[in-house]
């Protein structure tokens, strides 16, 4: 190595080094730390004494009824995202793209807004809106002419995921709308023009031309929706009160949080929590692969 390249390398490292070190220590290292933790019985009450225990934490998890309960709720959240937020976002983006409404900038900015508000604040707001004496109850009273009617879905374990699903759609649909809109706008319009000249109808253009061109964007959105839904914590945390109600609506990240940071009597709380956290990653990789597989099957079918 010549003296010149050595000096250049030093300068290069001077530019990359500081940021990269912070990144490696705080983002990359914890991933391995978390993996290691989940195979130990790390005991924070005894100053962090630990032994390797193999798959013990994962075995505990698979026999824990709370795990299955949170998994079920989390799958509901994933389904709401994939089959609620994405289609609605797509329809809204398509309407904007075809310039079917005026004041499109106004509509766009309104629908996109919740994306940038604090999820905790929005969660608290929806909690108030859905409360027994809240604005939603009042609407029900006005519509049903029954002054004692109340919105009770938040109170029953059977129905609590409906209002939560609604709030989730409210919060995130705008994000997918923007993604689709950007992809629609950079789409090559020649094919649509050609299809129009060939006498294709609006529906035919949509199904045969636009949808296939957007399959990439749909795939990306699905990945983002799955990963985001499995990690989503704030909104459901804020919409529910600690105790029975939050347990009814528990999703995996909340299960992880309660295990690691609220269940002080469990001496293996951090190890068990890490196992849950790693399980979330495994589940999200599995679901993303599954969605890719389904996407490929569908695409293959369309090509006859």
């Amino acid at each position, binding site marked *: 190595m010549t003296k010149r390249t050595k000096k250049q*390398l030093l*300068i*290069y490292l001077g*530019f*990359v080094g500081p*940021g*990269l070190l*912070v*990144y490696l220590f*705080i*983002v990359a*290292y*914890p*991933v391995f*730390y*978390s993996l290691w*933790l989940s195979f130990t019985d790390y005991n*924070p009450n005894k100053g962090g004494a630990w032994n390797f225990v193999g798959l013990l934490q994962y075995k505990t998890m698979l026999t824990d009824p709370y795990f299955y309960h949170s998994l079920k709720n989390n799958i509901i959240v994933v389904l709401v995202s994939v089959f609620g937020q994405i289609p609605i976002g797509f*329809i*809204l983006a398509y*309407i904007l793209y075809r310039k*079917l*409404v005026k004041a499109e900038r106004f*509509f766009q*900015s*309104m*629908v996109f807004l*919740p*994306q*940038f508000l*604090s*999820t*905790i*604040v929005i969660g*608290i*707001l929806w909690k*108030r809106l859905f409360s027994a*004496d809240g*604005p939603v109850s009042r609407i029900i009273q006005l519509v049903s002419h029954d002054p004692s009617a109340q919105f009770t879905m938040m109170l029953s374990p059977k129905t609590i995921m409906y209002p939560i699903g609604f709030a989730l759609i*409210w919060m995130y*649909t705008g*994000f997918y709308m*923007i*993604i689709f809109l*950007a*992809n629609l706008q950079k789409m090559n319009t020649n094919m649509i023009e050609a299809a129009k000249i060939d006498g294709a109808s609006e529906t035919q253009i949509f199904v045969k031309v636009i949808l296939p061109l957007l399959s990439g964007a749909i795939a*990306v959105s699905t990945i*983002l929706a799955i990963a985001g839904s499995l*990690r989503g914590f*704030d909104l459901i945390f804020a919409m529910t009160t*600690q105790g029975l109600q939050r347990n009814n609506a528990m999703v995996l990240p909340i299960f*992880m*949080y309660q295990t*690691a*940071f609220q269940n002080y009597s469990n001496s293996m709380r*951090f190890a068990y*929590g*890490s196992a849950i*956290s790693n399980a*979330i990653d495994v589940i999200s990789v599995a679901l993303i692969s599954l969605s890719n597989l389904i996407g490929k099957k569908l695409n293959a079918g369309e090509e006859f």
Partner: protein
Amino acid sequence: MYDFKAVLGKVVSYVIFISWALITVLPLVWMFYSSFKSNEELTRDIYALPHDLVFNYNDEYVVISPSLNLSYPYDPETDKRPRLIIESATISPTRRLMVYYLLKENLPETIAGLKPGDTLKLYELPPKIRRSISWRTFWFNYSSSFLRGGLGYKFINSLVYASFSTFLIIVFGTMIGFAIAKMPFKKISAFVMSIIGLGYLISINSVIIPLFLMLSKVHLTDTHLGIILVYTAFGLPLSVLLSTQFIRDLPGSLIESAYVDGASTLRAFYSIILPMTVPVIITISIISALGIWNEFLLVLVLASSELTKSLPVGVYSFSSLTSTQLGWQLAALVLATAPAMLVYFSFQKRLTEGVVGGAIKG
């Protein structure tokens, strides 16, 4: 025949869009105007427009005697000047929530001589005091959430986290971006880029347990520094990605001519590259700052004392503690969302571009 289908499409489009826009906006509108309503008004009619806190000219006040459940805005031990303590009879009456301590020396004798239990109307007071009380009544929910929830301090904490972390994200991000885009060592650069790109898959939520353990080992939990470092590290992937893309497209001849003039690499970076990178720096700053402003779990786990809590955590605990004071809570919610909305509406176009760029390429 007139194109019936096109008209139908338009009508359906408008119906969908207007209803969706209303669903999005109405809850926020309700939050804003209701934050100027007293608790009694909210119980009476949850949809009515604010009245009691706004039109307070005729409000009645009751003179009360000093007691233990009052929180004095001055030290009653040292400040012995005679005062008339009055409490509102309209807003949270008898709950000692809206109490004013008027110096008797500023009052006309007829009012200064009132005894506990006597009542007076707001308009009977001297104009200066009347205006002050009137103004404070209007902002009652906001001042209460500020003082009782300690939200003013948390507001500043949130500002500190957002600004310092964003600054570091920009400094580190553009430095790495410059090195990757404009320096030799392409193989190392590709490696660095792929490692940092993986950061997109990792969120604070997914490594919160090891983060907590690591930071407790080095005594950085419950410190501003620890929280800022974590935000910086997790903000880097987006910053590196966007600034690398941007700097790569800048003409290389500019830097070469600077080198010919004898400028060092560092100098070329900050006097030539950085000024040209401002557009993408703005985009990265807004996205990072908004994300940090709204982040919740990290501070919830790391901050154990009131000194380091951020606004979302403060608003959350305030709302669980004062679940009966809906007006105060709504004011707290507005305090936490208003700055984000301001930034959103001022920089909307850049935000949209940044989000799309980050999501599509990431």
